[in-house]
C-alpha cells in the first residue's frame, strides 16, 4: 500500500519516495508524533547523514491523519534564498500574482487549512526560511511546520530537536539490511558480529556512515571494514588513538569510501556534484564525460556509485533518475573543486540544460498541451535554476540567460512561476551588453507574455513593440508570427479589436506557411477573438472551428479546449444556449483533465452565464462565485477582453437581484467549492433547449454607465445596487470607512438634504439604544464619515440639524434615477420625441436594489421597495414602448430582465409571450405560458389570471400575429411614481 492509499483523507504533496525500509527509531517516532501535535514549529537538527530527512518523512507520514494536507518542500537543490517563498508556493501549486509578494499569496492559499508543511534541508537558507516560517505561522493559525536543518531556525516558538544517533541494536540492524542489499547472502553471525558492532560504534551510530560502510561488504568482510575504518580514522585524527570527534566521523567515512573508488568513479562522483536535484543518465552522459571518462563509462560508473550508497537511484514512471544526498554532494563538490574542474563542469551543465530547454521550447508552447514534456522539464527545475544562476553570474553570459528564459517561458506559464520568470528576463534584458537582435527580440516577447499572464496588461505592449522590428529584420517567420500574435493580444486586452486586426491577420498568414503545429491554433484563437470584437461573427466562428480541428488532429488538448470555450462564448452571444452549453462542457472536461485552472475559470463563467440566461440564478450565482474564488487563488484575470469583465459584473448583479436575501448564502457556498467540485457542478446538467430564451444581442449589453466622472461632481453616491462612494472620480475604498455605519449615515444624509437631527438618525439607526449610547454611536459614525470623506466641513450642524453642505456638488444615483425615470415615463405617455431612449438610459442607473448587500437598518426597506417598484414599472413601460415600436427582440429582452427581478410579474409574462408571438415564435410563446402556469402553481398555488388565459386561447388559435391591436389590450400608460421619495433638491 502506498502512503497516499494509507491516508485517503489527507492530500500528500511532494513526499519523497523511499526505496529502503525504515529501521528502528520507535522511541523517537513516538516522541515526534507528540511534538508535531503540540509544537507549531519543530526543527530536526543534527549533522549531515544523521537521518533528519528520513526520520522527518517517517514522522510526517505518521502525523498525516491529524492534517488535511501534507506539503513537502526540499530546499536541497535551491541556492538562492530569494526563491524560498517561490519554492514553497510551487509545492502548494500556487501560481504567483502580479501584485503582492509571493509570501502574501502563500498566506492566502494556506489560510485556515490544517496543513503540515515540511521544509527539508534548510541549513544553507536558514535566515530566508526563518523569515518565511515566522510570517506563515503568525498568519495561518492551523499551519504546523516540520523543518530539517543542520542549524535551528531561531523562530519564536521553535523547538529544535536533535536527531540522536542510532541506538546500537538499531545501528546493527541498519548495517545488516544495507549489507544484504548489496550482498543478499550476508548474515549476522557470531563470528562477524563483534566486527559489525565495532563498526557501528566507531561510526557513532550515524546512519549515512553506516550505510556507506555496509555498502562495502561485497568486497570487504566486516572485520576488514572495521580495521580499515580504524586506520583511516587514526590518519584523520593525526595518529591519536582517541575517537574522532563526532562531527568528523561522517566526513572520515566519506573520505574512506571515496579512496576506495577507482579513479574513474572518483572523477564521476565529483562531476555529478554539479547537478542540482536529480538527473537522468542521459544528462550525466552529456555533462560528465572527458578525461578518464568516456560516455559509455558513465552508466557503469553511476551504477557502481549506487552500489556504494553514494548515489541514490529513484524511478519515476519507469524512468530512472539519480541524485546525491546533500551531504555527499557537498563532499563531492569539494573534490571537484580540488581538481580545478568545477568551473568547467558547471559551464557544461548549464549549457547542456540551456540546449535541453531550447529543444523543449516548441513542445511546451501553449502550456499543458504536451504532458510528457511538461513533466520532463519540471523534473529538471533544479537544474534549470542552476543553469539560470550560472548564466546570471557574468554579464558575458547574458545572451545565454536570455535564450534560457525565452525557451522556458511557457514552462513558467504552466507552473505559474511568473515573478521568477519576469525577474530573470528583466535582469538579462537590462544588462548593457551586445545581444544578437533575434535573441533580444524573442526574449522581449517572452517578457511581454509573462506580463499578460500576470494580468499586467498595461505594461505588455512596449516590449512587444520593441521586439517587432528586431525580429522582422533578423527573426525567423515563426518568431515574427508569435510577436504579431502577442501584439494583437496586447491590443485586444486593451479593448482595441480594430487595431488588432492588422497584426493578427499577418500572424495567421505567417503561421499558415509554417510546419503544422500548435502555433496556428494559438494564432487563430486570437484571430477569432479580434473578429468577434469587430462583430464579424462568421469569421470568428471559422477561426475557432479551424483551431479546434487542428487541435484535434494534433491531439493537443489545450488547442481544442481553449477555442472550444470561445465557440461557446460565441454561441451564447447569439442566444444559442444549448450549443454554448455543449461547447463549454467539452472545453471544461478537457481543462479538468489537464488541470488548466485558467481554462476552468473561463468555462465556469461561461456556464454561469447560460444558467443566468435561462433563469437559473441559484446555479448561476454558485458558478460565478466558484470562478471568482478560483481567480482569487491563481491571482490572474481570466478575461480575454474588457467586455468579459462588464458581462461578469452584469451577471453578478442580476443573480443578486434575482436571489435577493439568499444571494449572500449561495455566493459563499459557491466561493467555498473546490475547483474540481465546481467543474463537476457545471457539467452535471443537461443543455438547455436551444432558443427557449434569447439573449439580448451583444450590442444590448452595454457597459455599466455613469461611472465616468464629470469633473464638477465632488461627491458621488451610488446606492442602487452595492453601495459605492466616490470623491470626484476616486472610489473611497472600504478600508477607509472602518465599518458600514458611517457609509449608511452618508446615504441617510444625502437622502435628507435639508438635514436631520441626531435623534432622527438615532431612531433610524439605533432604535433600541439609550440616549447616551446613541450619542456615542452617532459621533463615532460621524467622525469616521468625516475622516473617510477627507473633508470635515462637508457635514455641518445648522439649527441642531446635521446636513451636507449645500455647496458640495453631489451626484446621488437614487435621486437621478427617480427624476429621470419619472420624467421619461411622463414623456413616453405623451409620445414625446426620444422619450424611449431617455427611459432606457434612466433605467441604467438601477444596478441593483437600494443598498444591496449593505447591513443597513430597517429605515431603508421602504425606500428599497419603492425604487424597485419604480424600476419594474419603468421596465414595463420601456418594453411596451419597444413592443409598440416593433423592436421585438429588444422588447423580449426587456421583459425577461424585468422577470429576472420579479418572476411572478404576470403582466410581464404576457408581454413576453406577445413579443415572441409577434416574432412569429408561437410555440415559444406557448412554452412560456406553460412555464408561467407551472411557476404560479409552484409558488402561489394559483392559476394564471383571466387576462392570461384569454391571451393563451388566442395564441392557440394562432390569431395573435395578425391582430396587431392586441398590444393595446395589455399596454397602458404607466402609473406615475407613487411616493415623493425625497425632499426637493435645494436650489
Amino acid at each position, binding site marked *: 500500500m502506498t502512503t497516499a492509499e494509507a491516508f485517503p483523507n489527507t492530500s500528500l504533496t511532494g513526499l519523497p519516495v523511499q526505496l529502503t525500509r525504515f529501521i528502528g527509531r520507535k522511541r523517537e517516532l513516538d516522541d515526534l508524533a507528540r511534538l508535531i501535535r503540540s509544537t507549531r514549529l519543530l526543527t530536526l537538527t543534527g549533522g549531515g547523514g544523521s537521518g533528519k530527512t528520513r526520520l522527518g518523512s517517517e514522522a510526517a507520514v505518521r502525523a498525516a491523519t491529524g492534517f488535511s494536507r501534507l506539503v513537502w518542500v526540499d530546499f536541497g537543490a535551491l541556492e538562492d534564498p530569494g526563491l524560498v517563498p517561490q519554492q514553497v508556493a510551487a509545492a502548494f501549486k500556487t501560481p504567483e500574482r502580479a501584485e503582492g509578494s509571493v509570501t502574501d499569496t502563500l498566506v492566502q492559499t494556506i489560510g485556515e487549512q490544517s496543513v503540515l508543511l515540511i521544509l527539508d534541508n534548510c541549513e544553507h537558507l536558514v535566515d530566508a526560511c526563518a523569515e518565511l516560517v515566522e510570517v506563515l505561522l503568525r498568519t495561518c493559525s492551523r499551519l504546523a511546520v516540520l523543518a530539517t536543518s543542520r542549524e535551528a531556525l531561531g523562530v519564536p516558538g521553535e523547538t*529544535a530537536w536533535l536527531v540522536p544517533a542510532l541506538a546500537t541494536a538499531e545501528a546493527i540492524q541498519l548495517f545488516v539490511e544495507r549489507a544484504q542489499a548489496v550482498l543478499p547472502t550476508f548474515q549476522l553471525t557470531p563470528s562477524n558480529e563483534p566486527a559489525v558492532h565495532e563498526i557501528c560504534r566507531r561510526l557513532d551510530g550515524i546512519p549515512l556512515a553506516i550505510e556507506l560502510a555496509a555498502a562495502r561488504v561485497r568486497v570487504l568482510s566486516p572485520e576488514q571494514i572495521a580495521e580499515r575504518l580504524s586506520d583511516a580514522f587514526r590518519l584523520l585524527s593525526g595518529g591519536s588513538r582517541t575517537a574522532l570527534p563526532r562531527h568528523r566521523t561522517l566526513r572520515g567515512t566519506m573520505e574512506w569510501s571515496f579512496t576506495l573508488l577507482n579513479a574513474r568513479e572518483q572523477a564521476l562522483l565529483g562531476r555529478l556534484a554539479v547537478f542540482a536535484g536529480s538527473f537522468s543518465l542521459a544528462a550525466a552522459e552529456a555533462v560528465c564525460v572527458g578525461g578518464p571518462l568516456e560516455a559509455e563509462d558513465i552508466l557503469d560508473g553511476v551504477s557502481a556509485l549506487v552500489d556504494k550508497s553514494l548515489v541514490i537511484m529513484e524511478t519515476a514512471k519507469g524512468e530512472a533518475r539519480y541524485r546525491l544526498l546533500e551531504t555527499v554532494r557537498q563532499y563531492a563538490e569539494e573534490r571537484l573543486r580540488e581538481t580545478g574542474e568545477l568551473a568547467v563542469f558547471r559551464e557544461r551543465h548549464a549549457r547542456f540544460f540551456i540546449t535541453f530547454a531550447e529543444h523543449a521550447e516548441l513542445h511546451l508552447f501553449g502550456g499543458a498541451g504536451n504532458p510528457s514534456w511538461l513533466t520532463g522539464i519540471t523534473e529538471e527545475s533544479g537544474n534549470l535554476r542552476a543553469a539560470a544562476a550560472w548564466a546570471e553570474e557574468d554579464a558575458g553570459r547574458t545572451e545565454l540567460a536570455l535564450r534560457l528564459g525565452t525557451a522556458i517561458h511557457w514552462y513558467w506559464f504552466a507552473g505559474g512561476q511568473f515573478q521568477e520568470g519576469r525577474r530573470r528576463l528583466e535582469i538579462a534584458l537590462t544588462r548593457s551588453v551586445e545581444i544578437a537582435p533575434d535573441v533580444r527580440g524573442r526574449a522581449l516577447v517572452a517578457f511581454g507574455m509573462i506580463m499578460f499572464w500576470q494580468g499586467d496588461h498595461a505594461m505588455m505592449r512596449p516590449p512587444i513593440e520593441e521586439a517587432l522590428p528586431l525580429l522582422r529584420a533578423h527573426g525567423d517567420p515563426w518568431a515574427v508570427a508569435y510577436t504579431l500574435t502577442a501584439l494583437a493580444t496586447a491590443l485586444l486586452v486593451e479593448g482595441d479589436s480594430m487595431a488588432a486586426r492588422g497584426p493578427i491577420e499577418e500572424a495567421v498568414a505567417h503561421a499558415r506557411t509554417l510546419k503544422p503545429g500548435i502555433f496556428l491554433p494559438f494564432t487563430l484563437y486570437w484571430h477569432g477573438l479580434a473578429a468577434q470584437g469587430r462583430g464579424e461573427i462568421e469569421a470568428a466562428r471559422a477561426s475557432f472551428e479551424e483551431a479546434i480541428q487542428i487541435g484535434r488532429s494534433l491531439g493537443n488538448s489545450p488547442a481544442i479546449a481553449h477555442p472550444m470555450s470561445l465557440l461557446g462564448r460565441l454561441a451564447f452571444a447569439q442566444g444559442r444556449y444549448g450549443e454554448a452549453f455543449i461547447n463549454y462542457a467539452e472545453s471544461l472536461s478537457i481543462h479538468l483533465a489537464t488541470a488548466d485552472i485558467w481554462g476552468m475559470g473561463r468555462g465556469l463563467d461561461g456556464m454561469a452565464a447560460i444558467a443566468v440566461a435561462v433563469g437559473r440564478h441559484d446555479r448561476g450565482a454558485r458558478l460565478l462565485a466558484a470562478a471568482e474564488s478560483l481567480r482569487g487563488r491563481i491571482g490572474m484575470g481570466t478575461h480575454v477582453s474588457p467586455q468579459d469583465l462588464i458581462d461578469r459584473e452584469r451577471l453578478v448583479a442580476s443573480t443578486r437581484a434575482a436571489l435577493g436575501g439568499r444571494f449572500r448564502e449561495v455566493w459563499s457556498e459557491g466561493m467555498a467549492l473546490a475547483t474540481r467540485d465546481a467543474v463537476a457542478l457545471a457539467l452535471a446538467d443537461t443543455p438547455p433547449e436551444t432558443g427557449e430564451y434569447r439573449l439580448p444581442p451583444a450590442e444590448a449589453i452595454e457597459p455599466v454607465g455613469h461611472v465616468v466622472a464629470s469633473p464638477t461632481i465632488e461627491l458621488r453616491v451610488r446606492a442602487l445596487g452595492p453601495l459605492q462612494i466616490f470623491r470626484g472620480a476616486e472610489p473611497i475604498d472600504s478600508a477607509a470607512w472602518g465599518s458600514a455605519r458611517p457609509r449608511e449615515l452618508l446615504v441617510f444624509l444625502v437622502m435628507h438634504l435639508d438635514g436631520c437631527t441626531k435623534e432622527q438618525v438615532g431612531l433610524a439607526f439605533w432604535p433600541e439604544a439609550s440616549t447616551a449610547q446613541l450619542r456615542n454611536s452617532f459621533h463615532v459614525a460621524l467622525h469616521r464619515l468625516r475622516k473617510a470623506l477627507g473633508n470635515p466641513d462637508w457635514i455641518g450642524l445648522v439649527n441642531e440639524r446635521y446636513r451636507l453642505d449645500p455647496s458640495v456638488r453631489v451626484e446621488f444615483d437614487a435621486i437621478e434615477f427617480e427624476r429621470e425615470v419619472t420624467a421619461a415615463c411622463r414623456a413616453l405617455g405623451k409620445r414625446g420625441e426620444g422619450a424611449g431612449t431617455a427611459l432606457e438610459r434612466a433605467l441604467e442607473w438601477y444596478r441593483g436594489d437600494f443598498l444591496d448587500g449593505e447591513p443597513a437598518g430597517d429605515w431603508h426597506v421602504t425606500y428599497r421597495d419603492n425604487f424597485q417598484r419604480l424600476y419594474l414599472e419603468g421596465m414595463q413601460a420601456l418594453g411596451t414602448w419597444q413592443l409598440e415600436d416593433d423592436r421585438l427582440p429588444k422588447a423580449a429582452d426587456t421583459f425577461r430582465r424585468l422577470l429576472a427581478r420579479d418572476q411572478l410579474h404576470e403582466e410581464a409574462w404576457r408581454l413576453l409571450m406577445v413579443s415572441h408571438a409577434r416574432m412569429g415564435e408561437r410555440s415559444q410563446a406557448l412554452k412560456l405560458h406553460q412555464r408561467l402556469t407551472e411557476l404560479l402553481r409552484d409558488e402561489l398555488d394559483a392559476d394564471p389570471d383571466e387576462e392570461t388565459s384569454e391571451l393563451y386561447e388566442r395564441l392557440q388559435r394562432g390569431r395573435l400575429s395578425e391582430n396587431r391591436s392586441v398590444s393595446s389590450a395589455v399596454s397602458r400608460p404607466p402609473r406615475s411614481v407613487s411616493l415623493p421619495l425625497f425632499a426637493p433638491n435645494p436650489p
Partner: protein
Amino acid sequence: MNSEQPSTISSTRYESARAAVRVGDVVTRYLRAGVGRPVLLLRGSQEPDLFWSGLAAGLAERVRVIVPELSEPFADFSGWLLAFLEGLGLHSVGVVAEDAAGLAAIAFALAEPDRIQQIVLLTVASSEPADNDPGFGEPLAPRGLAVPLLIVPRDAADLLGQVTRFLTAGPGPASPP
C-alpha cells in the same frame, strides 16, 4: 547563504525570539536576537537583570545573541553545553559569562577548544582598577587555553564597545571541517 549579510533579511530577524532546544529529554529554553556570529550569554543567576538585558540588546546589534535559561546548579555543564550546541546546530560560538557560568565555560573550552571562539568573563563591579592591574580589558591568551579570553568588570567604561570589538575580531566561526 552568508548569515552575516543582513541586507536581504527583514527586520524580524533582529527582534528577539523565544525558542527551545530539545536533546533527549532535556529541554533548554533560550532567547535569540540579532543576526551574525553566534554568541552565548551565560548568566550565573536567572533573576531578571537590567544589566544583562541591556548587554544582550546592545550585542544583538552586531552579533546573534543566544541567551539560554540555565538550570541551577549545573550538574553536568559541559555535557549540557555540548548538547545545546549540537541541538542548535552550531559548531562554535563566542561566550559571554559571569560567575560560576564563566568558570564552567572556561572548563568547557579547555576540553573542546574548537567549539568556543572567544570567552568574555565579566567580573563583579570593581572600584577603579589600578592602571597597572594586568589583564582587565585586554585580550588575554593564557597558556593552555586555546581560546582568546577577555576579562572585564561589569562597570567598565564602554563595556559594550569593548565586548563587541573583542567578539567580532578575527575570522568568523568555522563550520565543522
